[in-house]
């Protein structure tokens, strides 16, 4: 029951380490204050002080917090600069797969809608500071630390920052270029078109990067030990049993699909679909320069598949899926006996039992194959029709309505490839929503033939 008490196991070394994190953040913000003083000017709404003054106050607070950590670490149980319960409680309450998926999709949409705002350097800096503060405060929570501080998972935190930075960089350059296009000015890439030599400019940069990466890898290998688990046993599966981090999106997909679909068909479609992108892309704009406005469809489709459906699923699988693949909120104890009732039913059961109020058609004993097939097709008729509608009729409907322009520009074959790839990608969120909304297990469930959709 120790996990229920106030900040249990908050050790001195954790507090001491956090002190260094805050100190680093303090120095970063000192540099930022200097930059702000030179560039940002005066805040006219209040007292008329320069913006840099606000940053200086913030940096001073960070320094005080850092000193508190670095000096007060010897009495960890009395330490009060921890994640407050009033923040933990709503986060824990609001955490579930639905909220996570809806939240990540909302963030994704906001990222595109508010791209002009969040790509300014100040906004980017504020977001970075907020995320580091959130992480540093959360580390004081025992359960959060157990998961995020696991040596396996530390690189995934780093990866999130890298993904965030490069997405930010892309949107920043795109917003800049789109504004230049609108104003009739030359593009960023044309204005900075001066060329440098491979030797020494590129090769030296590569050398420096190589040395840095090697140093980081060595330090990482020494500081964070690779955890070994118990010896493998055919009769015992570790609980939770997790795929390598880069496959956790697939593992999350396996919760909603048959292994044949989520393990073979959809990954192949992802790979082949990515290979097909150059052939189905008819938009000649955006070649060799950053832009969003000229490639709205391409960029938002790709980023939807990448950010909410791949990266967010990795986050979900790494940090929020615990024993028995149950969902655990960030500050929740990983209880092996957490009870989550998921009485899933198939579409055929929904249709026959709940809809028509009669039992499922049962294949008679010792029936010949055609009879068996007839009964099975009858039983799964609704699901088969739904899948046929989704994959065969829907592309045509979309061609006549929302994708009319695409259909005319691309021609039948290319349009069909695009439409089917889009529909395959959307099948994941659709299946997730159906699972959460009506506990739907399979749309077509034919376990007799190992065929489930």
């Amino acid at each position, binding site marked *: 029951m120790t996990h229920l008490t106030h900040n249990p196991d908050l050790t001195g070394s954790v507090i001491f380490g956090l002190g260094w994190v805050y100190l680093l953040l303090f120095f970063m913000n000192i540099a930022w204050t200097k930059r702000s003083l030179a560039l940002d000017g005066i805040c006219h709404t209040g007292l008329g002080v320069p913006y840099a003054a606000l940053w200086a106050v913030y940096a001073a607070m960070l320094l005080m917090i850092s000193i508190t950590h670095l000096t007060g670490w010897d009495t960890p149980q009395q330490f009060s600069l921890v994640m407050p319960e009033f923040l933990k409680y709503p986060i824990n309450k609001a955490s579930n797969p639905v909220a996570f998926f809806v939240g990540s999709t909302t963030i994704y949409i906001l990222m595109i809608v508010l791209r002009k705002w969040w790509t300014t350097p100040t906004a980017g800096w504020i977001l970075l500071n907020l995320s580091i503060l959130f992480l540093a405060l959360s580390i004081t929570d025992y359960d959060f630390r157990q998961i995020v501080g696991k040596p396996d998972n530390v690189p995934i935190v780093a990866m999130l920052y890298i993904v965030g930075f490069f997405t930010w960089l892309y949107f920043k350059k795109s917003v800049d270029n789109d504004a230049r296009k609108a104003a009739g000015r030359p593009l960023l890439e044309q204005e900075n078109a001066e060329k440098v030599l491979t030797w020494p400019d590129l090769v030296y940069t590569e050398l420096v990067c190589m040395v840095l990466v090697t140093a980081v890898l060595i330090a990482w290998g020494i500081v964070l030990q690779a955890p070994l688990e118990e010896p493998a*046993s*055919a*009769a*015992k*599966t*570790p*609980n*939770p*049993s997790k795929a390598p981090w880069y496959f956790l999106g697939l*593992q999350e997909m*396996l*919760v*909603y*699909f*048959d*292994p044949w679909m989520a*393990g073979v068909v959809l990954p192949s479609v992802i790979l082949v679909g990515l290979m097909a992108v150059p052939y189905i892309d008819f938009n000649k704009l955006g070649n060799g320069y950053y832009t969003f406005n000229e490639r709205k469809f391409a960029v938002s489709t790709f980023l939807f598949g990448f950010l909410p459906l791949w990266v967010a699923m990795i986050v979900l699988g790494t940090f929020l899926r615990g*024993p*028995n*693949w*149950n969902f655990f909120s960030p500050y929740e104890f990983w209880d092996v*006996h957490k*009870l989550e*009732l*998921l*009485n*899933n039913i198939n579409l055929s059961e929904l249709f026959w039992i709940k809809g028509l109020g009669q039992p499922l058609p049962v*294949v008679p*004993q010792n029936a010949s194959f055609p009879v068996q097939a007839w009964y099975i097709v009858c039983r799964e008729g609704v699901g088969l029709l739904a899948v046929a509608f989704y994959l065969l009729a829907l592309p045509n409907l979309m061609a006549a309505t929302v994708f009319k322009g695409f259909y005319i520009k691309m021609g039948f074959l290319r349009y069909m490839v695009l439409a089917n790839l889009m529909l395959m990608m959307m099948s994941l969120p659709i299946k997730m929503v159906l699972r959460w909304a009506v506990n739907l*297990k*399979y749309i077509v*469930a034919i*376990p*007799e033939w*190992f065929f*489930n959709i």
Partner: protein
Amino acid sequence: MEEKKPSTADILAKIRAQKAAAAAAAGDVPAAPAETPAPATTPAPAAETVAPAPATSGAKPTSTKDIMAAIRGGGAKPAAAAPPAAVAPPAGDAPKPAVAAAGPRPSVQDMLKAVREGKVGAAAAAPSATAKVGTPVAAPPMPAKPVVASKAAKPASARRSLAVVATVASISAASFVLGFAVGSNLLIALGACVWGVLMTPFAAAWFSVASIGGIWTLGTARFMFPNVLVEPPSKFKVGPLSDYPINTVSNKWKDQFGVWIVHTDQYEGRNMIFALTSVCTHLGCTPNWLDGEQKFKCPCHGSGFYITGVNFEGPAPRPLERAGLRIAEDGMLEVNKSVKYQEEMGQWSDPTSFVSVV
């Protein structure tokens, strides 16, 4: 000036000089055709005259370096000789001096050259080949005919030769076998002769590739039948009926044999004992029996099964599988893992898939 050991620089200088001489000789050919035999027949002196380095040809080569230098000098010979020989059309017997130029021991290049010349000669002799080789130059008035002829002739002849090889092979093999069967030495000898003709290097190479490949394949197939099989027996006793109280799941045999022994009256209201294999029907992980929740729960993707083995949550598409169970002659329960019973196939009604408790 005779040095025992010339330095590397000297050797290099010499080689360069020889190269220069060869180049000069080649360049001279169109201008002075009369000189062609000279570099062809006496390349070594020509090189020697140009070379400022200490000449080693006169002295006996003593050191390794000298020998190397001599070899390098010799290597340059045919290269120097070849261009004049090849580009001298007026001399009718041009190839011959080239071969002769190499001296008593012909180098590899010379031999190759000779072989090529011979081939061309043979091609010239064979009328069918002339059509192929000589068409563009020799037959300007009727270009269509030879082209068609050569086109048609090549695949047809290849096919014919294949057929011939196949026929000959079968005949020779048959005569071999027949000879042994009948006991006729004549037939055996005939078969051996034909076989000897057939065994060209090409056939021999493919034959050995095929036979080695076949042996490897057989060797691989042998691994499918190991001498010793280290796996638990598929039939094993799990104790008397009384070991398993009603509505319990026994984990006792899970680690060793991968089965749970379940005693429940929740499946179709019948009091029965059955053995469930501990393999999730979703992706094959091993679920755990959670006594508090009265369910099997898979750690990989969260599939859940009732005590009866029927799936009810998570992605598992079908119930857990049963293994065979019976009461053996000594009254003990005996599990038979070599058979499995799937609920969705209606196999759970099979009386060998459970033991009724009365």
